């Protein structure tokens, strides 16, 4: 009889596809976002099934968690600005010039072509491709960490990861440049449920975050996943107005954003020399260096993701900031 796991996979796959279609076709924006978040969590589950725990963790924490929060905040801003906070369903703001049918059909054709290309590329790919995972496995001892994914991310292809953190930095600079002003909306009335939750959950989240960072060397985990979990703490503080960003804090905030990138780049450069090239950690210090980098990068990612959620540079009215939501 067919093994139960295969049925589970089929059901999960169907659920994922159904959720994807549902989230795009439902009219109400709020339910669209909720459906998307469920879709994200289920796909993270699917990736666990595909024995990719690191990626599942990253997808759940960053891909669905932080993105979901960002989407909800933008929806809230849309409703607050257009004064439709009270209404039951917030319909999407249809643009003034509807796109002519011709272009939509052309787009649909373009999508069909691309998906077809994708199908050919996927079916043509050999099942077990000649990846250089063998090389990774054999070079793991010199990488200073045991977990292959962290080894690839922070040693073999450390340059990519540095540039990835630079992408995050670029994002926060762009967001601060686009949006500015202070938010002085009244603090939401948070009942006892929240107080209880906060006292228990926040410290636990911090512990989980640091654990994720630490375990990254041996098991699935690492800087990005740990950073995202710590960012959740920041999000909760911002939501409950426990911490309201002030213009005075901007200096510290900018320092925190650039800390991860600067530290990573400095370590990468300072190891060069004495016959070594940039990014070539000396063998005996490899583990400590990697952990140092991971720690600083995690802190930086947490603050950056929280700032991305807050979405604006805290600028006083005098300097051209605006006060609304």
């Amino acid at each position, binding site marked *: 009889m067919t093994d139960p796991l295969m049925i589970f996979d089929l059901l999960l796959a169907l659920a994922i596809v159904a959720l994807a279609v549902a989230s795009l076709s439902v009219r109400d924006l709020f339910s669209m976002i909720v459906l998307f978040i469920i879709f994200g969590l289920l796909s993270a589950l699917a990736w666990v099934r595909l024995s990719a725990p690191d990626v599942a963790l990253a997808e759940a924490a960053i891909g669905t968690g932080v993105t979901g929060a960002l989407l909800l905040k933008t929806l809230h801003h849309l409703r607050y600005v257009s004064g439709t906070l009270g209404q039951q369903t917030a319909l999407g703001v249809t643009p003034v010039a509807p796109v002519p049918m011709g272009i939509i059909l052309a787009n649909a054709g373009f999508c069909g072509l691309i998906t077809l290309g994708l199908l050919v590329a996927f079916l043509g790919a050999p099942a077990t491709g000649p990846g250089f995972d063998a090389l990774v496995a054999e070079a793991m001892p010199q990488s200073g960490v045991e977990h292959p994914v962290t080894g690839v991310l922070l040693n073999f292809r450390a340059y990519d990861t540095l540039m990835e953190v630079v992408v995050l930095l670029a*994002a926060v600079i762009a967001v601060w440049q686009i949006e500015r002003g202070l938010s002085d909306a009244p603090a939401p009335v948070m009942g006892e449920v929240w107080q209880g939750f906060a006292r228990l959950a926040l410290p636990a989240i911090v512990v989980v975050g640091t654990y994720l960072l630490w375990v990254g060397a041996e098991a699935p985990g690492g800087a990005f996943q740990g950073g995202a979990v710590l960012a959740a703490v920041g999000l909760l503080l911002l939501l409950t107005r426990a911490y309201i960003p002030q213009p005075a804090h901007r200096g510290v905030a900018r320092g925190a954003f650039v800390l991860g990138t600067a530290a990573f780049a400095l370590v990468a450069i300072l190891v060069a020399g004495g016959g070594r090239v940039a990014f070539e950690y000396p063998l005996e210090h490899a583990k400590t260096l990697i952990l140092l980098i991971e720690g600083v990068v995690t802190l930086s990612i947490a603050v950056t993701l929280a700032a991305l959620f807050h979405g604006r540079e805290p600028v006083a009215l005098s300097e051209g900031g605006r006060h609304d939501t």
Partner: protein
Amino acid sequence: MTPDLIYGLTGIAVFGIGLVGALCAQDRLRRVLALKLCSVGAGFLLVVGAWREPPATPDPVPHALVITGIVVMVSATAVALALIRRLQTLEATDER
């Protein structure tokens, strides 16, 4: 019907849906969400490609690629959403 085939087809389906949504949706928020669906579909295909029959461990390199892809996607989404919020503010002030 091994898992990688099932999830591979799921990935392609999700990517196709996301692509149609990204190009044909009228509402800004919906387009950002559709692009995010595409990125999850892309992640599916790469993770499926890295999968090996259970005794063998999967290839770590595509996993690193997908993690980087997710982080890049979240920063791009954050910038896009900031643009949408700013546009909404300006459009609201113009109308009022």
